[in-house]
């Protein structure tokens, strides 16, 4: 039987995998079909914000007691 921290870590990892799959799909569409600078700007800010939130969530994940 997995312990509570193990369950939290597994659920968070699964969420992060799902989240980055979604982000990858959006990035693919923006780069593949985007016209002009507008899609590139969105892609750029999307990566920065997503990276920050991911780092923050991973840091929090390992500080939970």
């Amino acid at each position, binding site marked *: 039987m997995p312990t509570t921290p193990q369950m*939290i870590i597994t659920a*968070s990892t699964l*969420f992060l995998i799902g*989240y980055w799959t*979604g*982000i990858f*799909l*959006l990035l693919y*569409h*923006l780069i593949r*079909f*985007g*016209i*002009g*600078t*507008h*899609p*590139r*700007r*969105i892609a*750029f800010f*999307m990566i920065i*914000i*997503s990276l920050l*939130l*991911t780092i*923050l*969530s991973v840091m*929090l*994940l390992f*500080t*939970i*007691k």
Partner: protein
Amino acid sequence: MKTEEIKEIINEEVRTQTRGWFDFLIKSEIDFEGRKQSEQIIVFTRRHWLVLFSPIVSGLMASFLPFIIIVIGAQLLVKYNLSGLFTLLWIIYLMMIWFFIFYKLTMHSLDTWIVTDERIIDISQIGLFSRKVSELHLTSIEDISVHTKGVLQSYLDFGNVEIQTAANAQRFLFEEIPKPIIIKDKIMHAASLHNHQR
């Protein structure tokens, strides 16, 4: 030519040739798949930014909802040592909201209309896996009408441009685009030029 002029020309050349790390965010030629070499782009437009206002504002407001839980249940969170878990859940919740906002931005960015000196291209991004590209030659245009509805569309100058083609059933709709009257005039001008050239 004076030395200063030559220096200025060289500097300009250096400025245009030097590529910075973030140049891709500023400089870009509008180009699209299937564009002919001689084809000139006359209009390139997306929906008006106000269309994004509602999802972005609601997303940002939703991201502050957990504050209510903090205000109501702060003591419980501290008592049961759940503050760490709560912050983690909050970050995950924020990620979901940001994903929703980015999804809306992506759809807005990929939903475009292009008018060239030969044709009109309507690119509709309906969902992540649903994309429709329609094309209309300028010779097929019968008439164009502009529709602005409501206070916001009138004041912020955006609305629909409807293009009726020779085939009765077919029509092209530019939805919620900025400056619809100017775009209508540009299309009409391009169509008349194209018809004269033929």
